């Protein structure tokens, strides 16, 4: 059975810490870092990467377009 796996890459220097991606992720992948970028913003990162399915919601809502989304199909082998 094919399973869909996703991942996001956040351009942390351009992230403004608005958190709109956090509330838009259906699988609760994203959290805000404790650290700040050079502008002083806490930036978004994948806190829970295994849950990402690459749905693009976070990137579509991100005002500044700083999220790139990746998605691939993974064939699951049934153990014998």
């Amino acid at each position, binding site marked *: 059975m094919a399973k869909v*796996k*996703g*991942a996001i*890459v956040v351009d942390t220097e*351009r992230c*403004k*810490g*608005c*958190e*709109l991606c*956090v*509330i*838009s992720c259906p699988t609760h992948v994203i959290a805000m870092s404790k650290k700040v970028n050079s502008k002083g*913003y806490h930036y978004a990162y*994948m806190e829970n*990467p*295994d849950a990402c399915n*690459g749905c*693009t*919601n*976070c*990137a*579509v*809502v*991100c*005002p*500044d*377009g*700083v*999220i*790139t*989304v*990746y*998605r*691939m199909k*993974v064939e*699951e*082998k049934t153990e014998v």
Partner: protein
Amino acid sequence: MAELDIKDIVKEENIVYKKTSVLTDNVMHYCPGCGHSTTHRIIAEVIEEMGIQDKTIGIAPVGCSVFMYDYIDVDTQEAAHGRAPALATAIKRLLPDRYVFTYQGDGDLAAIGTAETIHACNRGENITMIFINNGIYGMTGGQMAPTSLEGMRTSTTPYGRDPGLMGHPIKMTELVAQLPGTYYVTRQAVHTPNLVRKTKKAIRKAFEYQKLNRGVSFVEVVSNCNSGWKMPPVQAVKWLDENMLPFYPLGDIKVPEM
């Protein structure tokens, strides 16, 4: 199955979303979470998808989006406050094969530029107007706009907008829909992923309709001004849902008869 490493997923061939190149690499000066940024981004995406970057001319307003030309990589002309539809009229009449759009805030389109808005819509100029309604003058420090809601606190209505004294909020989009020169009139928003997708489709339609020469296509975007409203972005989009949308309901107001 062995767990997949993020490195195996993050590869060029697996990209399903990345920033469009029609948006420049300049960092947008907008406040965190501002709907101006989102709307710029999806206009740029539509221009890329339609392949019309060298055929599009934007008109930037006065207001927070005054620097639109630094972000959307198309030929752009800056208009005096409120005069974008007049400038768009001239440009479209001189260069009728171009896609011409104005981008205007509510102070720009619905206060100082009301005359230009109404008359361009009444003349049926073959342009697209994108109207960012955040219910406030964002750029100048959060003063009341004609679109500010009843009871809304702004820097010039610290006790809330009193319609008896300051008039009622104006629904420009319903108003221009009454005019014979508008062809497509819709109200959208950009604060959730699905609303962004819908607004992008509406902007695409608005640009496509220019090919038909049938008049103004008008897209209002109900937006947030976190700084003017004095709320963090997540709270502002909730406030927008609960307060702006009941008064400014989303959806098409005038659709072409097929």
